[in-house]
C-alpha cells in the first residue's frame, strides 16, 4: 500500500475529554495489531443494539480483527454489513462518485403532513438528515410515535436520521383560538380583544388569549401589536382591565400560538418580557421527555444568554450520564444577537430562526445577521442551521418562487451546515417536492462552487484550548488544505498547510515542538512530493470516537467529502447535521493500518470506493495524517 503517514507522538497526549474510554497510549507508527477493547455503544439509544459486532477479515489478510466482546456468533453474517451507512448516500456514492455528494445537510420538520412511516421514509430517501419535532404543536404521545417511526426507519433501512426536539420557548404568544378553528382572519378595521383572562368557556368572538400575564399592564394605548413579525398588525385603542382592545391595521391570518411583539414609537418594547424565563415549565417537561426518548439535539428557543445553555447542559449531563444530547441555540432575538459569540461558544450549534428574528429586528437586517451568524458558527466550529421561510410558498404551491431559490442558493454559498424546512414539510402540501428543491439547489450551487474554484477568504481562528486539541485542529486544517491545494497548485497548498501548522504548534511547549517539527518536516516533503504527482484527493477519511475531529474537518469545508467513521450510532447521527460529513458506524481499533485496510475492504465490497482513489486519512486516537491510494 502506497502511503505516506504522518503521526504525532505527543507525550502529554490524552484522549479528548469527551472520549468515553481511557486513552490507550499511541505509539509512533504503531504497527502491531494490538487487541483493544472497542468502544461499544454505551449510549442509551435503543438502536445501538442493532449494531451487532462482527468479525471482519480485512482485504489483504493482515489487518486486525476486532469483535466486540469476542462474540463471534454474528460474525459470519456480516461481511459487508460491518459498516453502517444509509442507503441513499451509498447509492449516491455508487452512482456519481465522491465529488458529487451533497454537502449541505437538510432538516425537515415533522408534522401532520409527514408523520407516517412511508412519508418519513420518502423524506429520508429525499435526503432528510435530521428530523425536527416542534413541541409547540402536538402532544408528547404524538411526538413519541414520530420518534419511534424514525428509529424504526434507521434500524430497518439503515438511515442515520437524527432527531431534533425544538422547545416552545416563552416569548409572548397567543393561545389557541377558540373552538376548532385552526386559523382566524382579521380584517382591516376590526376590533379584536386580547385578554390575559382565562376563559373556561369557549372564547367570545374576536377574542384572543395571551399567555403573558403582564400583557395588559405593559401595553399602552397607541402601541402597535405585531403578530408573527408583521403578518397581522393591530393598534391598541383601549385597555379595560385584563382586556386590551385593538384595531386591526394590517389584515391577515391569525394562527394559533403565533408570536406577539409590541412596538412603541417605532421600536420594539421588550424590557418586560425579558423577565420571562427562557425555558418555561412546559419546556422543562419537554426536555425531560427528550432526554428519556434519547433525542440527538435539543433546540432552545429565544436564548438570551449563554447561561441558559450552560444550565441546560449541566441538567442534561446530570439526568443522563451516558447520552450526549447536543444543545442547539436558536438565534431569534435581539438579546441573542448581542451575546452571540458567548451563546455559540456555550452551545453545540446554532439555528438562525429567521421568522422570529425578523419580528424582533428590522426585517432588512435579517440577511446580514444571517451572514454574520453563519460565519461566526463556522469560526467557532459549531454547526449552523438556516431556518424559517426558506420555501414558504411551497406550503401551497408545487413550485418555489424565484426569490426562494435565490435565498437557498445564498445560504448554500454562505456554506451553512444545514437548511431547514418548517411548515413546508410539517403541514405543506408538497413536502417531498420542497425537499427536492432544497436538495437540487444545494447540489447545483456546491457543484458550481467547486467548478469555479471559489476560494472564500475566511479566517478560521484557533479555537482549541488544550494542546491535544490544537494538534487535532491543526491536523484537520492541514488535511483540508491538502485537498484545497491539490491540482495545479499542489505544492504550494501543502507547504502552506504545514507552515501554518508549525506556527500553530509553536505556542506549545518547545521540547515537544522540537520532536514534532522534525517529523513534520520530513513528512511534509513526502506529502508534497506525493501530492504533486497526483491530481485530486477523492475523500478524507476520519476515524473519530467523539466526532470532534470530524467536526473540525467539516469546519474547513474541504472540496472533497469527508467519510467519518465512528463507533457509536449516536455520534454517527449527530455528525449527520454537519456540512460535508458522510457518517459511518464502524468498529475500529487504534491500529490505523488495519483500520484502513478493513475500511477499504468494506467500502470496496459495497462499491463505494475504487482502487486508485486517493484518500487522506486522519484519526483522533493516533493523531496522524496519511495520504494513500486505495489499494
Amino acid at each position: 500500500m502506497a502511503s505516506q503517514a504522518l503521526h504525532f507522538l505527543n507525550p502529554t497526549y490524552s484522549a479528548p475529554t469527551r472520549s468515553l474510554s481511557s486513552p490507550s497510549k499511541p505509539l509512533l507508527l504503531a504497527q502491531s495489531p494490538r487487541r483493544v477493547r472497542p468502544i461499544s455503544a454505551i449510549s442509551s439509544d435503543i438502536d445501538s443494539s442493532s449494531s451487532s459486532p462482527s468479525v471482519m477479515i480485512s482485504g489483504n489478510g493482515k489487518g486486525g480483527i476486532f469483535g466486540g466482546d469476542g462474540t463471534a456468533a454474528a460474525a459470519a453474517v456480516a461481511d459487508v454489513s460491518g459498516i453502517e451507512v444509509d442507503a441513499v448516500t451509498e447509492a449516491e456514492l455508487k452512482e456519481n462518485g465522491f465529488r458529487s455528494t451533497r454537502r449541505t445537510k437538510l432538516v425537515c420538520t415533522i408534522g401532520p403532513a409527514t408523520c407516517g412511516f412511508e412519508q418519513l421514509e420518502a423524506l429520508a430517501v429525499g435526503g432528510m438528515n435530521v428530523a425536527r419535532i416542534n413541541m409547540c404543536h402536538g402532544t408528547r404521545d404524538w411526538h413519541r410515535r414520530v420518534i419511534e417511526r424514525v428509529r424504526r426507519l434507521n434500524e430497518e433501512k439503515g438511515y442515520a436520521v437524527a432527531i431534533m426536539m425544538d422547545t416552545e420557548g416563552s416569548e409572548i404568544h397567543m393561545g389557541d383560538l377558540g373552538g376548532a378553528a385552526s386559523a382566524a382572519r382579521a380584517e382591516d378595521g376590526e376590533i379584536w380583544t386580547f385578554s390575559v383572562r382565562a376563559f373556561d368557556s369557549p372564547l367570545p368572538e374576536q377574542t384572543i388569549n395571551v399567555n403573558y400575564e403582564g400583557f395588559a399592564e405593559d401595553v399602552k394605548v397607541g402601541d402597535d401589536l405585531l403578530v408573527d413579525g408583521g403578518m397581522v398588525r393591530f393598534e391598541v385603542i383601549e385597555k379595560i382591565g385584563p382586556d386590551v382592545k385593538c384595531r386591526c391595521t394590517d389584515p391577515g391570518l391569525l394562527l394559533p400560538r403565533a408570536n406577539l411583539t409590541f412596538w412603541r414609537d417605532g421600536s420594539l418594547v421588550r424590557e418586560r418580557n425579558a423577565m420571562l424565563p427562557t425555558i418555561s415549565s412546559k419546556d422543562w417537561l419537554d426536555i425531560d421527555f427528550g432526554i428519556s426518548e434519547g433525542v440527538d439535539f435539543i433546540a432552545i428557543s429565544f436564548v438570551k444568554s449563554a447561561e441558559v445553555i450552560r444550565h441546560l447542559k449541566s441538567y442534561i449531563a446530570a439526568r443522563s450520564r451516558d447520552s450526549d444530547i447536543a444543545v442547539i441555540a436558536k438565534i431569534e432575538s435581539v438579546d441573542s444577537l448581542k451575546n452571540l459569540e458567548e451563546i455559540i461558544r456555550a452551545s453545540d450549534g446554532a439555528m438562525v430562526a429567521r421568522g422570529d428574528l425578523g419580528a424582533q429586528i428590522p426585517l432588512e437586517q435579517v440577511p446580514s445577521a444571517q451572514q454574520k451568524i453563519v460565519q461566526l458558527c463556522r469560526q467557532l466550529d459549531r454547526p449552523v442551521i438556516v431556518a424559517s421561510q426558506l420555501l414558504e410558498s411551497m406550503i401551497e404551491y408545487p413550485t418555489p418562487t424565484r426569490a426562494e431559490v435565490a435565498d437557498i442558493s445564498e445560504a448554500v454559498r454562505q456554506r451553512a451546515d444545514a437548511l431547514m424546512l418548517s411548515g413546508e414539510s410539517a403541514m405543506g402540501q408538497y413536502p417531498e417536492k420542497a425537499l427536492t428543491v432544497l436538495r437540487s439547489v444545494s447540489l447545483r450551487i456546491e457543484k458550481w462552487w467547486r467548478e469555479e474554484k471559489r476560494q472564500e477568504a475566511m479566517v478560521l481562528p484557533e479555537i482549541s484550548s488544550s494542546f491535544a486539541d490544537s494538534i487535532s485542529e491543526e491536523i484537520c486544517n492541514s488535511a483540508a488544505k491538502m485537498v484545497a491545494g491539490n491540482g495545479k497548485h499542489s505544492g504550494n497548498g501543502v507547504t502552506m498547510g504545514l507552515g501554518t501548522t508549525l506556527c500553530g504548534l509553536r505556542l506549545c511547549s518547545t521540547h515537544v515542538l522540537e520532536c514534532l517539527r522534525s517529523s513534520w518536516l520530513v513528512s511534509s516533503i513526502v506529502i508534497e512530493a506525493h501530492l504533486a504527482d497526483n491530481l485530486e484527493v477523492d475523500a478524507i477519511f476520519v476515524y473519530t470516537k467523539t466526532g470532534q475531529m470530524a467536526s473540525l474537518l467539516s469546519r474547513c469545508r474541504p472540496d472533497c467529502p469527508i467519510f467519518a467513521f465512528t463507533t457509536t450510532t449516536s455520534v454517527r447521527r449527530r455528525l449527520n447535521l454537519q456540512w460535508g460529513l458522510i457518517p459511518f458506524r464502524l468498529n475500529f481499533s487504534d491500529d490505523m493500518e488495519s483500520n484502513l485496510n478493513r475500511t477499504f475492504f468494506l467500502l470496496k465490497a459495497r462499491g463505494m470506493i475504487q482502487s486508485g482513489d486517493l484518500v487522506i486519512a486522519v484519526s483522533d486516537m493516533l493523531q496522524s495524517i496519511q495520504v494513500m491510494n486505495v489499494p
Partner: protein
Amino acid sequence: MAQVVASRPVHGSFVCASAGSAKKSSIDELKPSALPSKFFRAKEQQKNKRFLRNVTVMVKRSLRAEPEVLPVSPEDLPKREEEFQHLRGVQLGNTAVGMWSKPTVRRKTKIVCTIGPSTNTREMIWKLAEAGMNVARLNMSHGDHASHQKVIDLVKEYNAQSKDNVIAIMLDTKAGFLGPEVRSGDLPQPIALTNGQEFTFTIKRGVGTDSCVSVNYDDFVNDVEVGDMLLVDGGMMSLMVKSKTEDSVKCEVVDGGELKSRRHLNVRGKSATLPSITGGNLDWDDIKFGVDNKVDFYAVSFVKDAKVVHELKDYLKSCNADIHVIVKIESADSVPNLHSIITASDGAMVARGDLGAELPIEEVPLLQEEIIRMCRSMGKAVIVATNMLESMIVHPTPTRAEVSDIAIAVREGADAVMLSGETAHGKFPLKAVKVMHTVSLRTEATMTENDTPPNLGQAFKNHMSEMFAFHATMMSNTLGTSIVVFTRTGFMAILLSHYRPSGTIFAFTDDERVRQRLALYQGVCPIHMDFSNDAEESFNNALSFLQKQGMVKEGEEVALVQSGKQPIWRLHNGESREGQSSMARAARGLLSRAAREQLVALAPREGRTACARAMKRPPVRRVREPRESSLCEHAARVRVMTDIAISASLCNNDSIEGDQTLVDRPISD
C-alpha cells in the same frame, strides 16, 4: 508627502507605485493616522496658505467612509441596540468635526414598479414616487393604449413638477410583441385536475371541456414530444406528455391543481417562444405607441438572438426616436446567445419566472449572477425581476426568503430590482416599495466597500472615458465624496454608474429625456439644468442647486466630472486648459498641488509616452493609504492621460497657483 512623491522615479511612477504603497499600507496598519499627518506637517512648512485648514481637518478624520445609514424606517432599532449601532453610523457629533461633512446616503439600487389596477391613479403614482419608485413599467399585455396613455401622462406630469426626483417610463411588450406566449384556451369554468388524470391539449379552436382544452399555438403538437413536461403558469401545475395525435397532445397530470382560462404554458427545457414565431411579428402598434409617447425604455420579451434587437433599433432610428432597448432574458434559447443579445441592446432584465420554468430552477440564481456580471462588464443596465416580493401581493410582510433575495440582487450589483404583480394588482403596493427601499439601502450600507472599483475591461471603445470614469470613481471612493457629472447624452453618468462609486452620482443634464432615462441606473441621481456658456457658472449653479435641495451639505466635498470625450464647454470661455477635454475636478487642494508637482516634472518631458504607458498598465491596483499620495497619483494620472497638452501649457505659463482646474471647491455660501 514630499517623500512619497519625490522618491518615486518620474517615469516609473505608475509602475513602482504599487511597491511603494504596499509598504506604506503595512506601516499604516500599525499607525493609521500618524503617518499622513507627518507628511502633512512637512508640507505645511514648505509653503501654502490656502488649504491649510482643510488639510488638518482631513488628517483628523478617517478617510475611509464609514457606512452610514439614515434612519430609514420607523422599525429602525432603538438607539440602545449597540449590536446594530455601527450600521446607523455616528450621526451626531461627527458632522461637526470639520467642514468636511459626509455625503447623505441615498439608495443606489433603483426600483422598477409595474403600474396596474392597484396603482394607476394619480394619487398612487405620486405616493409610489415618494416611496421610492424610479421607473414605471407598463405591461402592454394587460390593459389598452388608453389606460397606458393615462399613466404615461400622469408620470410626465409628476416629472414636470418634481425637481429632485424623476420617473422613467418603461414599456413592456410582453405578449404579442415577438409573438404571443403559448396559452391554453378559454374554459367555461376552472377544471380541477388530479394527479394521474389524463388531460388533452388540442390545437383545434374553441375547445374547453373537462378533459380537453385548446392551445393558441398551431405548431404545438409538432414542438412537444412524448416525455416532455408541460408546465402551467411556470410550474403551478405540471403534465407529462404521454402521446400525441395530429391535432392533440395527451398528457398525464403530474401535479394537479385548478386549471383556469388562458394559462401560460411552458415546456421544461424548451423555449416557450417556439421556433415559428420570429421577430417578423413585432407588435408595431405598441412600438408606435411608445414612440409617440416618448417612453424611455422598451423591454422586449423572449429575445432569442440579436437580430430582433437590431431590427427594433433600426426602426427606432428611422423614426428618430431616442428609446433604449432592454432585453428580457427569459427563455432557454436566449442563454447561448447571451453575449450577442446583450451587446446589441442597452440593458437586460433577468425575467426569472419563465427562466425557472424552462430551465431547472436551481440554475436561475447562477444565471442571474452571470447575467448581472456580463451586463456590468459591458456597461449595460441590468434589472432583476419576477417574484421578488411575491407574498406581498396578499400579505403585508415579506417572507425572509424574499428579503434575502433583494439583498442578493443588491450585492450582486444589479442596477434595479423590479416589482410586478406586487404593485400592479397587489394589496400592498406602497409597502412593497418601502420594503425594497429599506432592504436595498441597508444592504448597500453593509456591503464591504472596495477601494478599487472593479475594472470593466474592454466595455467601451472609448477607452479614454473609461479610464477617466475609473479614476474619478477611485478618487471619490477614497475621499468618500459624491460625484457631480455634467453630461448631455448621459454617457458619462452611465459609465460612472458602472464603476459603482460609493458616493451618489449627481448627473446634471440639459436634456429632459436623458434625465429621465438615467433614473434607471444604479447610484445616479439625475437632475435637469440648463448649462450656461461658462463652465464655472454652471458648476456653481449645480452646487448651489444641490445644496438648496439638501442633497449635499455645506462643507462637503464633491468630485466634479465634466462629460466624457466630448466636453461640454469646449473652448467657450477662451481658456484653453478649461475646455481642453474631459477632466476630473478632484477634490482637495493638497491633491491638486501634488498633482501639479508631478505634472511639472512629468508633462514636458514625458508627454505622450507617459500617456501611452499609463494606459497600457493594468488599471486594477489596490491603492492603500496613505490615501493622499495615492490620490495625487491618480489625479496626476488622469491628467497625464487626458490633458497632456494642457499640462504642458500650464508649466509654461507658470501659473500653477492660479490654476483652477484641479482645485477643490468646498461648498459654501
